[in-house]
């Protein structure tokens, strides 16, 4: 009983500063806070909204095209910038995917036994591949949103589309082993470029102990697309 009526210990000399002062805090008392919070009103927003409605169509289209073009530049020279992730859009990937699928197609009148990928097959592979990789990244606990990831993967097809263009031009020359070596070299370089560009953007969103798990499907995805480009014969 006598011990129960002990005076509160001196918190100042307590060996653990973590608990200092705790015994002096009265839990049930209210501490009033008074003050003012002001938010600066941004009156310019309304004018901005009106102006995008009233501007000419050309301005709108040019703005979107410029944004797409800027992202192309970011892919070609991958730096640590968050523009691709912040303002994602799916126009760029759509343009690239359609271009790639069109170039991978050959005239259907050529050969009935034609075993190459059709337009729909390329489209499905690119989009479902990107969706699967995104889902995989999110399931592993990644910190990236669904459309941001789709945007990055779609934009990083740009080097491979360029490779397809070069391959088509090279194939206009005569066929032969030299022709094949040139195409092989171009495709390998562009494949490495794509993988490096996309991992530069995507790797940061994963915890470090799972980075390799998230990057491997990207590697597989671009490898399959490179294979389709390399085995293209007109």
């Amino acid at each position, binding site marked *: 009983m006598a011990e129960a009526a002990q005076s509160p210990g001196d918190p100042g000399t307590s060996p653990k500063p973590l608990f200092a002062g705790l015994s002096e805090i009265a839990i049930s008392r209210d501490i009033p806070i008074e003050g003012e919070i002001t938010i600066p009103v941004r009156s310019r927003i309304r004018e901005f909204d009106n102006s995008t409605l009233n501007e000419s169509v050309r301005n709108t289209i040019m703005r979107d095209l410029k944004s797409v073009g800027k992202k192309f530049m970011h892919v070609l020279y991958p730096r640590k910038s968050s523009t691709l992730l912040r303002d994602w859009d799916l126009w760029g990937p759509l343009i690239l995917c359609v271009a790639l699928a069109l170039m991978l197609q050959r005239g259907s009148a050529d050969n009935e036994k034609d075993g190459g990928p059709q337009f729909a097959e390329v489209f499905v592979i690119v989009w479902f591949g990107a969706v699967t990789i995104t889902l995989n990244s999110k399931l592993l606990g990644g910190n990236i949103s669904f459309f941001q990831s789709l945007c990055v993967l779609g934009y990083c097809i740009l080097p491979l589309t360029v490779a397809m263009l070069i391959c088509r031009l090279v194939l206009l020359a005569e066929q032969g082993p030299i022709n094949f070596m040139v195409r092989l070299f171009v495709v390998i370089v562009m494949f490495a470029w794509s993988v490096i560009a996309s991992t530069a953007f995507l790797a940061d969103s994963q915890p470090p102990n799972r980075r390799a798990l998230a990057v491997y499907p990207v590697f597989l995805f671009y490898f399959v697309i490179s294979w*389709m480009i390399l*085995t293209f014969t007109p």
Partner: protein
Amino acid sequence: MRKVDLCLSSEGAEVILATSSDEKHPPESVIDGNPETFWTTTGMFPQEFIISFHKHVRIEKLVIQSYLVRTLRIEKSTSKEPVDFEQWIEREFGDAATALAANPDGSTISIEDADETPKHQPGPPRGAGREEDDELLGNDDSDKTELLAGQKKSSPFWTFEYYQTFFDVDTHQVFDRIKGSLLPIPGRNFVRLYIRSNPDLYGPFWICATLVFAIAISGNLSNFLIHLGEKTYHYVPEFRKVSIAATVIYSYAWLVPLALWGFLLWRNSKVMNIVSYSFLEIVCVYGYSLFIYIPTAILWIIPQKAVRWILVLIALGVSGSVLAMTFWPAVREDNRRIALATVVTIVLLHMLLSVGCLAYFFDAPEMDHLPTATATPNQTMAAAKSS
């Protein structure tokens, strides 16, 4: 399972909050393991303290020794931060005076509860009193994955978090599992050793995807190399075969485990087995056992029949033994013939898959046609010379 006092600073427990402190009787006395020291409270009521364990623990018995405590309430939290506490136990000790008269040594409560897995243990004593000692006996079978297995079922299946539990693996774990599937050690069960109730879907899914493309691409490449010199051969990248390969391999990787799981469940109802596997563990074993076929498919490009068949046998040996050693403990309690038949069927299906892929995607190397074509002109020339 040895009993360990988890509530010790030597076991990694920490008192992360105490609402009062005295320099002679600090809160750390609760977890120092010394029955002579105690924590004393000062100030107003209720008083509380929070004990944090460094990992999820399963507590079987809780012993608290306190003095002049009227009400004791224990709450638990299973999150990493001390938030989301839920009440666990609350006890009233009656009037402090009568309690003291009845038992001058203080009050001891002893709680046995083997089903709770608390991480934080706060105890707010109401009324005048001091905490004397705390003792927590816990089951140190604290394999985190086992406890998480109990946590996994909590999310309903329509939430995203439910599916995230199937991808809860790190890079090195995936590599370990792949290594385990390549090197079957006799007597070591793949599931018990590597999966340990944390089956993942990452491995099976991406190994199957890689295998699909490996088979399709290698088949294409091998056909191209075999028919390289022929004038009549027009190279086509047979893209149709990718979809066929995908269908075959993914259905094998999902339907055969489903059938096997159903079969094991049926036999389990008749014969009590020591070992039983969940559906996901079986899918996991099958998925990882297919890994050996990826390098095999790449090596199948070599256009020699003997080489290809040797590769088939090696791959079948490795993955077949992984599967056999995994499933033998699950069926050996059963009727001898049924057990043998099950294991033989598993290996046979595996062989069917590999031989079927070899036959369909890879053309037979026709190396013996060319020598006969060149032999006959020589014979006719020799005949013309001699005659």
